[in-house]
């Protein structure tokens, strides 16, 4: 039996397939594009090409596009999926999971492998992947390049939490001739500050933090989060798939 997890986020769609022994048979990521329904169809064809059949396997869909996967046996929210995926990836049961997604950031407190408490950002996109993307666009750099640039920057601060206002702040910094790396520094620090503020509101303490979602490969963000939270922050390239892996694990319970 194949266990298929599909995580359709606002920016990227992630797929993970596990076998009976929880070995990863397949994982992949692609842009969500403008239609989650089309994306779900593309994923289905891609899986079939790889010899994985969504009709015979168990499928759980998660992410904001979870309702757009007609062949899913069940939908489960990102909170539960990221929690299960994090426990599986990190092989630990007590931790705080921070998922920085395209349009929302989630803080999940896990105790003994169970979700004890969680919080999500409100309508506002501060502290999310979208924030980074918008700023990267304005600065004409790729989001991953912005992360690396930030490491070389210093001092500059963006005070607006709102993406729209922050963008105009960035534009005026560019206008003033501020160095690119300093603006990048300000952008990434602004995300980390917002996330740290959300964590302190939830009393997450100083236990281990596991970072999932699209920004898991931004090494600099991981470093400054460690400083701001006073906790070890663990992550890795595979953490992008935490939601999809969690969804695949959830499909075992169907």
């Amino acid at each position, binding site marked *: 039996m194949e266990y298929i997890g599909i995580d359709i986020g606002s920016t990227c769609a992630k797929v993970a397939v596990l076998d009976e022994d929880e070995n990863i048979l397949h994982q992949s990521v692609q842009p969500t594009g403008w239609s989650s329904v089309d994306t779900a169809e593309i994923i289905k064809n891609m899986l079939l090409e790889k010899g994985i059949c969504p009709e015979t396997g168990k499928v759980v869909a998660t992410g*904001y596009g979870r309702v757009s996967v007609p062949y899913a046996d069940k939908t*489960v*929210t*990102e*909170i*539960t999926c990221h929690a299960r995926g994090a426990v599986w990836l990190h092989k630990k049961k007590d931790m705080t999971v921070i998922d920085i997604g395209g349009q*929302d950031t989630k803080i999940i407190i896990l105790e003994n492998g*169970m*979700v*004890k*408490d*969680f919080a*999500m950002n*409100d*309508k506002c996109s501060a502290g999310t992947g979208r924030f980074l993307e918008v700023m990267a666009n304005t600065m004409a750099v790729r989001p991953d390049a912005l992360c690396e640039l930030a490491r070389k920057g210093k001092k500059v601060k963006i005070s607006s939490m709102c993406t729209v206002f922050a963008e105009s702040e960035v534009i005026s910094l560019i206008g003033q001739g501020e160095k690119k790396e300093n603006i990048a520094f300000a952008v990434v620090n602004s995300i980390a500050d917002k996330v740290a503020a959300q964590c302190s509101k939830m009393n997450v303490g100083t236990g281990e933090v596991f970072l999932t979602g699209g920004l898991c490969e931004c090494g600099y963000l991981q470093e400054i989060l460690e400083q701001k939270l006073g906790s070890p922050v663990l992550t890795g390239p595979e953490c992008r798939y935490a939601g999809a892996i969690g969804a695949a694990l959830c499909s075992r319970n169907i």
Partner: protein
Amino acid sequence: MIQLPENFETYAEARKAGFLRMKQLKESGRKVVGIFCSFVPTELIEAAGGTAAPLCATSEEPISAAEADLPKNLCPLIKASYGFALTDTCPYFYFSDFIVGETTCDGKKKMFELMDNIKETYVMQLPARRDEAALDAWEKEVVRFWKKLEDFYGITITEEDVKKAIRLKNREREVMLRFLELGKLNPAPISGYEMGTRLDGLGFNPDIEERCRIIEARTEEVIKDWEENYRGKLSKRPRILITGCPNSGIREKTIKVIEELGADVVAFDCCNGTREKVEKVDETLPAARALAKKYLNINCSVMSPNETRMDYISNMIDEYQVDGVLELILCACHTYSIEAYNVKKTAMAKNVPYLMIETDYSKADSGQINTRLEAFLETISQFK
């Protein structure tokens, strides 16, 4: 979700049905006093031969008009209520002879000053503490309002008039409480969405006796159905306690949704729930003192300190066998959002998951709320 009865009347329908009735009442010479919070001793209005018209608005529509005078980052209930007054689009405001407000939250209190320019708005000074001095001061306010009604209408309201109204309102409290306590049954016999909608809708019915008859009939019907079809069949659906701000304006995107997602809303610690109903007015004390005592004990977050609300929530968690506490906060409601810290602690101390949702009357955040509620139910089901 537990089925709604066939003749179910939505809140909007109940409000609309009340328009004509209010007009007829008014034409027949009935006195109408517009009210907002549950702190107003409506017994006095009843004793004056009047009826209290509920003016707390639940619609997004008049908010943009209100923002001409009021700040944007203010509670939607306050903005909507003021907006209706300003645009003269609420029949209940229109038919009110005067408005009675009280110094509950800062937003309402200052809004009343502006509302007074549109229609006479009389304000009762509610103390925030609950001690002897506060009780004495509040009793004076009750007497002052009593006198205000006499002067405004040129009538005399006797002690016996008020006592009679106290007995009537106490009976109503008993009937409503019995209806709300149906939520203690397991499995839940009635949808929480129906309970809340029905009670809010009844506010537009000016006849207290008739309100009691309607609710008693529904209570009996629900009990009969439960005895015949559900008794002994314990349900796995998570049982939710609703707490926080008045929720009439956000009921569709929160309470209705969580029930559609598979939970039963069984308990309401809010001003349209059991909060005002649990303590009756003491029928043995002098009327003004008795009213002051009862109304000062309402567990609204405007009171400081307000530990009694925490005790009450804690007891409700046991009595209604609650699996999750959902706190609903209207944007920019400072007293409830600060007090949420204590509510969360109270729920956590009972090992009951807690979720706070802060929202307004718009539909902009429906998607995010859905995900949160769904995740909340998944969290609860880990423990069940």
